[in-house]
């Protein structure tokens, strides 16, 4: 519940982006999450990314499931339509919304309970179908709204706040997304805004299913010693494999890079994504290499972050369905109804 109204006044010095909006225009209601929640940092990164990308706020549709993470779309992009759907089913609703109007940018926000437990099936199939969207999982390994139960992404052997040791193996959403054919897979940490913002921007320009798993510590129920999703633990084990140097289609590339250290990826929207490889033996454009590398480093106890896998022109569900360039929700009877002439012929064929 929101009790505090945000002041609408903007400081006159606030910069405007190319479409005429200040960063404040991308904000939403005041967050009702706990102070220090990682999710709020993610909301801030989404706001920053949209502003920097010159996206008109009302051209974004934000969808979520149920849980702490799924409440956050109320706290950013207040001028966008939002849809807080049912638990674990955001991917299907987003798929339908995307089919209805291919011209909007779709942002799906979910949590580890929402996507790895009740919604694991829908998560998997949305990746398989390559729905054009940014799918962010705000992953804290715990059920926050119901006060501290383990979620399906909690590491085996990790401890809950009450001292219970988790006996179940974790669901690795990043690994699943890669295996299921997602064409953009990244992991980040809510405490690293410098990494998150370029990743979100790259995901928005991707043009297919772009999945970002963001480790986002729960300050209330999962930020203690024994947790593997606490701020301290993640900072200690975070290992970035790549850093997005810049995304550009127009500006001249000026940085001097040693050959072999960077990977350029042509994005769907015509821009180029330049990735600086922080691990020399890592190739983020090779699915098989990326998967085995990730598994090997995970076995060493490292939490790999950055853009883990990306496929340039991957197409999307609309490409596969060969749908009209015009949004389906804009078509009227003249486009859709075959009329009486055709019906007479059908009748004749049924006699």
């Amino acid at each position: 519940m929101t009790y505090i109204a945000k002041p609408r006044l903007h400081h006159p010095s606030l910069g405007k982006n190319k479409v005429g909006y200040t960063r404040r225009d991308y904000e939403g209601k005041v967050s009702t999450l706990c102070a220090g929640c990682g999710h709020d940092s993610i909301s801030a990164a989404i706001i920053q990314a949209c502003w920097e990308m010159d996206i008109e706020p009302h051209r974004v549709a934000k969808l979520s499931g149920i849980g702490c993470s799924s409440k956050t779309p109320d706290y950013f992009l207040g001028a966008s339509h939002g849809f807080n759907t049912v638990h674990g089913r955001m991917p299907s609703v987003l798929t339908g919304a995307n089919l209805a109007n291919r011209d909007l940018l779709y942002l799906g926000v979910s949590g580890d309970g929402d996507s790895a437990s009740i919604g694991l099936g829908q998560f998997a199939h949305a990746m398989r179908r390559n729905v054009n969207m940014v799918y962010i999982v705000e992953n804290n390994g715990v059920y926050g709204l119901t006060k501290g139960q383990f979620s399906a992404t909690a590491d085996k052997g990790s401890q809950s706040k009450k001292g219970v040791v988790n006996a179940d193996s974790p669901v690795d959403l990043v690994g699943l997304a890669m295996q299921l054919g997602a064409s953009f897979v990244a992991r980040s940490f809510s405490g690293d805004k410098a990494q998150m913002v370029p990743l979100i921007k790259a995901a928005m320009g991707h043009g297919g299913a772009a999945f970002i798993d963001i480790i986002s510590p729960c300050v209330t129920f999962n930020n203690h010693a024994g947790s593997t999703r606490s701020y301290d633990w993640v900072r200690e084990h975070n290992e970035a494999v790549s850093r997005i140097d810049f995304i550009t289609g127009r500006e001249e590339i000026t940085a001097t890079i040693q050959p072999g250290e960077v990977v350029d990826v042509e994005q769907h929207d015509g821009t180029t994504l330049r990735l600086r490889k922080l691990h020399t033996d890592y190739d983020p454009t090779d699915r098989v290499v990326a998967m085995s590398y990730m598994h090997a480093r995970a076995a060493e106890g490292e939490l790999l972050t950055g853009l883990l896998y990306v496929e340039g022109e991957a197409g999307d569900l609309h490409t596969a369905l060969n749908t009209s360039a015009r949004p389906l929700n804009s078509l009227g009877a003249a486009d859709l109804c075959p009329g009486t002439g055709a019906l007479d012929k059908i009748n004749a064929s049924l006699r």
Partner: protein
Amino acid sequence: MTQITATNDFVIKFANVNGSGSASANELFAKAILRMGVPVSPRNIFPSNIQGLPTWYEVRVSEKGYLGRRGGIDMMVAMNPQTWAADVEEIEPGGYLFYDSTRPRAASELRDDITVIGMPLTEICNAVYSDPRQRQLFKNIMYVGALSVLLDVDQPVIEALLGEQYKGKEKLIASNVQALNLGRDFATEHLKHPLSIKVEQAHRVGQRIFVDGNTAAGLGAVYGGATVCAWYPITPSTSVAEAFMKYCAKFRVDADGRHDYAIVQAEDELASIGVVVGAGWNGARAFTATSGPGISLMTEFIGLAYFAEIPITLVNVQRGGPSTGMPTRTQQADVLACAYASHGDTKHVLLFPEDPKECFEHTATALDLADRLQTPVFVMTDLDIGMNQRLCEPFTWDDARDYDRGKVMTAEDLEHKDFGRYKDVDGDGIPWRTLPGTHPTRGSYFTRGTTRDAYARYSERGPDYIYNVQRLLAKFATAAALVPQPVPRPAAKRTRLGVIFYGSTSPAMHEALDVLSGHGIHVDALRLCAFPFPDSVKEFIDAHETVFVVEQNRDAQLRSLLVNELEINPAKLCKVLHYDGTPITARFITQFITDHVHEAVVAPVDSKF
């Protein structure tokens, strides 16, 4: 033995093995009679299986045009040794048994009160054909040939049908005609013909069409402007989505070869309804087709669509429930599950088509109603009309008809009008909505399943909740005037008896009413086409002393709905229930109502009928 004697009025049943290619031969037989101007209504009685299990095709021939299942079999074409005993048993005394006598049956396996006609089909086939598949398929065409002689069905009509079926595949036409004539020649030479049951040219078919309800519903979705279909295969609804696919491929491809539609075969029913909800929220006309188990799975989303007020259309081709139930048998047993789907207080709009023509119309209408009312709308068809070809009036459409997209605010509206997503500004309970991406600064809101105030702001305040749910009730009352209205059939004489029925019960009911009035039992009838019930339903019940409610489920679900919604005294509503999975018959209804009336007559305290 007195043989059954009837022209253009008999029932013939084919007992076959699933997957043996009998379906197309049997359909050919039924269509040939139709082409002679004699109404037929065939019904597939099939197992949930692809090959090997028993399957039946029951054809009622009725010059009077009675298309309900009659009950009783005048002639059995027994082609399945597995079901021999039961098939022979089912024949009416004086009826006929036609069988493959390559291995003749002993007298003990037959009956002496029926006429047995043996034809060595396998022997003839084996002599003529060497390919096993041909032996199998042409055996079917051959018995159609023999039956055409026995029952006096025109040979040229069958040939013409074969020509249409295999147009462009001349070789197939020739080989089928050859098989047909093999059957005809044998029957002409060796069998007494025609029988005492036979077909005679009539002119009782007219412009009517012969089509199944699922094809009609799929076509209705195309005409009604559905652009998004998400579905999960489930018997008996699968062919709705398949028909939509087929007709979209034909009618919905634009000049650039791109599709003005999107069809997703989802991973389950949860996802298919989710896709439909997302598309409906974003302003596309969207539907799913499913059956009872699918409805159970979709129920959470149906509650969301009701409460968040999102237009969605569901075609529910009902089958026998509960659970997996009888997947290939018919029932009207999802009425309550759909009317009140979801936890919490909910009510949903249901439409009850009576035949394929109405499957077409109601599906198109449902898409309009969903947009107008911003709520789930169910087209409650069933296996009997969904999967069987039924003779019905041709499909009609008015080219001047535009889609009713309901109350959607444009960017211009938002410039000068107040927007409260859940506010009743017109007094009909229907709020205005906006679509994502409409206006840079106005009209956005956060859609949710949680309670909210009239401006879509999260609120658990009692008054906000009451305002909202009372408005939903007002909207439901508005719906009663917008849905297809009940169709009365007054009795010839003034009567204290009424009957209410709906959906696929229609042909059996109309036949029963004819028979009953012939016996001097007059009953006013009202066919319900939708829920919520308009005032005329209550008026009809109030105007009669006893009202029979005829339905195809065990628990009298529509009757419960009437009692609950209209506050009718239950004692007034007499249950007439048929729920063994076969379609209801006129004989069943007639018998029930007749018994009831006679009991009332002999009862000392109540002799008013």
